[in-house]
């Protein structure tokens, strides 16, 4: 029983990080209709940003979050403004190709500049934990979960209650109507992609504290984010939290009851099931 509870807690905490990873992908997908295959690479770059801020300047990874997010925001904004805008309104396949290309470029550049060595962000409290009711809660994962929740709720509030948020939603729903109301879609697109990249950066920074960063982590993370975004739906940031936690729980319970080698079978099996039964995602309303 204790083991089951512990495994569920592990899954829940991991789920927070998963959700944060997928949040930016879901946002960019939902608003810009770009399935960003370079999303995992942006997470990887965020990880390196956090790593260098920590090792070279001694900035705690949690305090570095705003800075990492700002750096990635600038990168994302520029990418949309100067690269992805070239293929705006072209078929989905082109956006897949170009983001795949970006993914490869970032990976190769990362190996060139950062080498293939493993990097970990290892602050003194990295392995600390608290024990409640005989269950172990890794501190870093608790913090990460809190950050993920904060950023998700923050994004939700931003989308629902600010001018920018309304403009983003309007652009996603009806581009020409938004234009009529004075929204500059180019700016909104760049802003959205920037926010997506900033969220990826935050996820990367935290990922570096629980796991390690190499130039090659991107592809696997993109696949995971893709599954979470589908399961959670693209309409609602809170859906992404549900998707992330659900995926992590499925993985943990599969590892416990079936065997760790079946994790991917189970998680992608669920993805297929969701696509068949509720293609709009678990919390999504209707398919577009």
């Amino acid at each position, binding site marked *: 029983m*204790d*083991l089951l509870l*512990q*495994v569920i807690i*592990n*899954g829940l905490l*991991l789920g927070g990080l998963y959700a944060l990873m997928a949040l930016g992908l879901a946002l960019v997908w939902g608003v810009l209709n770009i399935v960003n295959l370079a999303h995992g690479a942006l997470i990887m770059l965020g990880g390196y940003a956090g790593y260098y801020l920590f090792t070279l300047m001694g900035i705690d990874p949690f305090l570095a979050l705003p800075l990492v997010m700002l750096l990635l925001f600038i990168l994302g904004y520029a990418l949309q403004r100067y690269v992805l805008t070239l293929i705006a309104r072209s078929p989905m396949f082109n956006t897949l190709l170009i983001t795949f290309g970006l993914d490869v470029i970032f990976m*190769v550049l990362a*190996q060139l500049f950062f080498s*293939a*060595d*493993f*990097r*970990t962000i*290892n602050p003194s409290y*990295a*392995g*600390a*934990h608290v*024990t409640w009711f005989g269950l*172990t809660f*890794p*501190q*870093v*994962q608790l913090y990460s979960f809190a950050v993920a929740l904060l950023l998700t709720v923050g994004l939700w509030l931003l989308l629902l209650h600010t001018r920018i948020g309304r403009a983003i939603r309007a652009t996603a729903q009806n581009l020409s109507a938004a234009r009529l109301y004075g929204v500059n879609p180019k700016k909104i697109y760049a802003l959205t992609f920037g926010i997506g990249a900033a969220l990826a950066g935050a996820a990367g920074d935290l990922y570096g504290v*629980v*796991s*390690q960063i*190499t130039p*090659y982590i991107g592809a*696997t993370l993109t696949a995971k984010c893709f599954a979470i975004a589908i399961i959670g739906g693209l309409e609602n940031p809170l859906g992404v939290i549900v998707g992330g936690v659900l995926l*992590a729980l499925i*993985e*943990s319970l599969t*590892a*416990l009851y079936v*065997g*760790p*080698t079946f*994790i*991917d079978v189970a998680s992608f099996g669920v993805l297929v099931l969701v696509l068949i039964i509720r293609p709009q995602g678990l919390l999504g309303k209707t398919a577009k």
Partner: protein
Amino acid sequence: MKRSIVALAGLLIVGQALAQNVITLGASVQETGALANTGRYYRDGYNFAVDKINAKGGLKVAGNSYQLAVKILDNQSDSNLSVRQYVQLLNQDKVSFLLGPFASNFALADSSVAEKFQVPMIQGGGASDQIFNRGYQYIFGTLPVASRYFESTLSMMKTLTPKPQTVAVLFADDAFDVSVAKGTEKWVAEAGMKLVANERYSTNASDFSTLISKLRSVHPDAVLVAGHETEVLNFIRQAKSLNFSPKLYSFTVGVPTEDFRHALGKDANYAFGMTSWIASPNNKDDYFADAKAFAEAYKAKFGYDPDYHAASAVADVEAFAKAIEKAQSTDPKKVRDAITQLNFQSLYGPIAFNATGQISLPQTVIQVQHNAVVDIYGQKTINKPIYPMPSWDKR
């Protein structure tokens, strides 16, 4: 004009004469991609050994002197590409002999190319028993047999007080680690200990929290992990954050490398590992003087410490040099036969291949103590192990 034509013709003749006297070794290595971190040891080791042998005058074969060259292709950590590259090396680039890639699943597939073309491949990157128990004639290996990786560790564990009673084994689901795990079951039983968990996980797994929680509930005295470096790092970090500390844990890979200690800092302490090679001046060598001199020169040239992968790669090149000189021929069949007869002292250890094509080399048990790797146990205790490992909150 006339003069320059003569000069050009002269150059061509010299060039051709040189070209005739080069023996090229070919390899497909992970220079980029997920395995690039270990692949570089092979790339750098091959190049370093070839340079050194050439600097010492190259090879003397049937009265002619030959220079060695190495042609390395980057397989981008993709084993399918690796197979195609070995075919390309033989068909298109016309290399004379093959050096190996890193990792058993690569060597397993690539050795079929060597066998099909009947060109010998000496590889120091794949240890799985599967590579060698197919009756192939053209594949040779300089890593210890995978199934015996934990043999010396278990033999050391028998000498510890209190002697560990229960053992858990974790292993990745690839050719090499499955072989390690199969062998380890036997060594555990032979040591009179009880196997309380034997768990297989997917290669590249990053979340070990469930496995660790499961292990915590069965309290093994010792945990033996056969996996890859990134998994080992994840395992240790998550073991710390879930407050799991057995009396001892040991890992097939990672522990000897500098990268491991950099990534973990002081959390690397007390981890046991193994190495098929130590940079000791006792390992005499014809080309580099000894293993210690080699390690220093390597570090100076490439900027990082070599580990057993690099030494194994150097031994592969040296084995070809010795075999070609022994055969006094560059005919692949004759060189193959000469390889089976080899018996020489390299900086990596004595090189003599058995009937299946592998060398016999015991693993030395090592442990990270006070942020440095210490040799603990070979055939007998070299240095005192720190055991039991202090729990995380007592460090």
